[in-house]
């Protein structure tokens, strides 16, 4: 296990350094003077320019700048946001729970619907259920989710008036010492109607964000299940006279789910990219919307930090999934 972990890290460290180079290079590749861009000032005197340049470290050789950048990162210093003048890391951590909450609900939704859909489709291969569910999955997989979100808003918020159009909770609710996870905060606060309000705000964005992962998981579950159903050990179990339910639930499903776990893990990147669109449509105050806002406000320290942190989160989750895969897959565990 330790060797497995070390092997993974040997891959991850160069990748992580690559990510930092991309984030570092990003600011220097932008059209315009990086000093002005990072300081958020324009039309300044040469003296002020020299002062800023020294303050931000742009007057030193590029490799010193990079090492400084790297050193600051390891101390948790991602620079200051130009719009709020607060540390980028603080901004990120304030908004991150909103995205995590949305993403977790979406992935849970996708898993709870996707796996049964795929498994039943495989068991009933060629039936109308198989055809309809896989057709739906392909439509979901092909869905432009920003349009799907708008359609849901038209229907559920515009026509039925069931759900709000934006935000995380009604303005009358406020949780002074909240965790940032609205579902949890509203539940433990005991304020009447707060939890329901949080759910009503969350449900449409979660459905939108879950759409593509759900389709991918359903398709993957079906093909994994089909593969396993053709294996010798399943035939043996059937030949032993086991009930079809036991064969499927004990022998087939457990083995079919192993590759599906990896698929679910890989959806984290998809969810991060999807969060950018979903949060923009529903004005969900998470890091996806923050990134878009930062790009349009030319708040480059925030864009740089956000880029790095989002890629870091994706890498970290992928590492955890890899480790989990080693734990649940006996073939890897014992090799």
């Amino acid at each position, binding site marked *: 296990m330790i060797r497995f972990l070390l092997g993974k890290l040997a891959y991850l460290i160069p990748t992580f350094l*690559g990510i930092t180079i991309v984030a570092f290079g*990003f600011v220097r590749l932008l059209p315009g003077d990086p000093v002005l861009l990072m300081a958020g000032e324009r039309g300044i005197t040469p003296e002020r320019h020299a002062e800023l340049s020294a303050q931000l470290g742009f007057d030193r050789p590029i490799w010193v700048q990079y090492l400084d950048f790297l050193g600051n990162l390891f101390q948790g210093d991602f620079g200051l946001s130009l719009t709020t003048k607060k540390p980028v890391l603080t901004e990120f951590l304030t908004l991150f729970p909103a995205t995590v909450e949305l993403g977790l609900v979406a992935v849970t939704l996708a898993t709870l619907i996707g796996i049964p859909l795929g498994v039943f489709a495989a068991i009933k291969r060629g039936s109308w259920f198989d055809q309809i569910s896989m*057709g739906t999955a392909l439509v979901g997989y092909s869905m*432009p989710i*920003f349009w799907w979100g708008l359609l849901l808003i*038209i229907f559920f918020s*515009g026509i039925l008036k069931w759900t709000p159009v934006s935000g995380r909770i009604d303005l009358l609710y406020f949780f002074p010492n909240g965790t940032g996870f609205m579902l949890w905060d509203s539940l433990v606060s005991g304020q009447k109607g707060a939890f329901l309000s949080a759910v009503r705000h969350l449900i449409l964005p979660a459905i939108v964000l879950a759409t593509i992962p759900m389709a991918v998981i359903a398709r993957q579950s079906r093909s994994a299940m089909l593969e396993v159903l053709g294996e010798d050990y399943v035939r043996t179990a059937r030949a032993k006279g086991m009930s079809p339910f036991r064969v499927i639930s004990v022998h087939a499903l457990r083995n079919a789910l192993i590759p599906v776990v990896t698929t679910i893990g890989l959806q984290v990147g998809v969810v991060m990219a999807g969060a950018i669109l979903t949060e923009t449509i529903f004005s969900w105050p998470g890091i996806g919307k923050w990134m878009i806002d930062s790009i349009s406000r030319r708040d480059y320290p925030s864009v740089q930090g956000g880029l790095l942190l989002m890629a870091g989160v994706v890498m970290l989750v992928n590492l955890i999934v890899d480790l989990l895969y080693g734990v649940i897959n006996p073939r890897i565990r014992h090799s």
Partner: protein
Amino acid sequence: MTDVTKSAPQGSETKRLLREFWFYFSENRGAVIGLCVFLALVLIAAFAPLLAPHSPTLQNRDALLVPPFWEQGGNPSFLLGTDAVGRDILSRLIFGARQSLFIGCVVVSIALTGGIILGLVAGFFGGWVDAVIMRVMDVILAFPSLLLALVMVAILGPGLTNAMIAIAIVLQPHFARLTRAAVMAEKNREYVMAARVAGAGRLRLMFRTILPNCLAPLIVQGTLSFSNAVLDAAALGFLGMGAQPPTPEWGTMLAEAREFILRAWWVVTFPGLAILITVLAINLVGDGLRDALDPKLKRS
């Protein structure tokens, strides 16, 4: 000597392979439907000026937000209605097909060429060349694709060309990885050794001997990337970083329509439907191609 390296199939052989391919492809009903829809889209794009009833950028000031013809207040000369500045939605959709197919073709060509060259070089030479190329690919894949494309567009400046370059760079590692894996599997096979012994140079070995035998997975990935490119370009357009107004691009049309979603459903519904149908058709073809080109599935 040259006869030994000549591995390209002759005319009748190509025909037989194509017939066999079509046999397996046409067994998949969805794939055939997808192909028909895709061909229809190509025709629509090609004959857009003849098919469109109006100019895609002509603003009819006396016909703002006209609903589709079957709704009350609809006007038969604007079949799918008009947008907020009075442009005919149907005509914009027809011209939008040109944009989307163009985006798909350009992005896939760039990503495929770049990915194949990098993958061939990495797989063929191995060692540190391979390590460097593949680590760079890992870095690109570590970022959420849309985020990286967005940041690249921020560097290059908003616009369709830059959006296409950004999407191609983001999609390209998939081709590089596939090509590399295929090359690693093929390069020690006997026919490659035979070509090498016969005196084939490195370039010839890479492009003429090995590459044709790695094409099947690349074709499938190419189709998938085509649909991804259409989706991502529309997403960038929607976020204001892709094609700029008044270009009749479907994602950009959706962005312009956002503020009217609760007043005029048609300005939002039709462009998105066009994206969905296009992407769905290409994905159906992709599924069919995968089944037809995968020898493991063929035998089952």
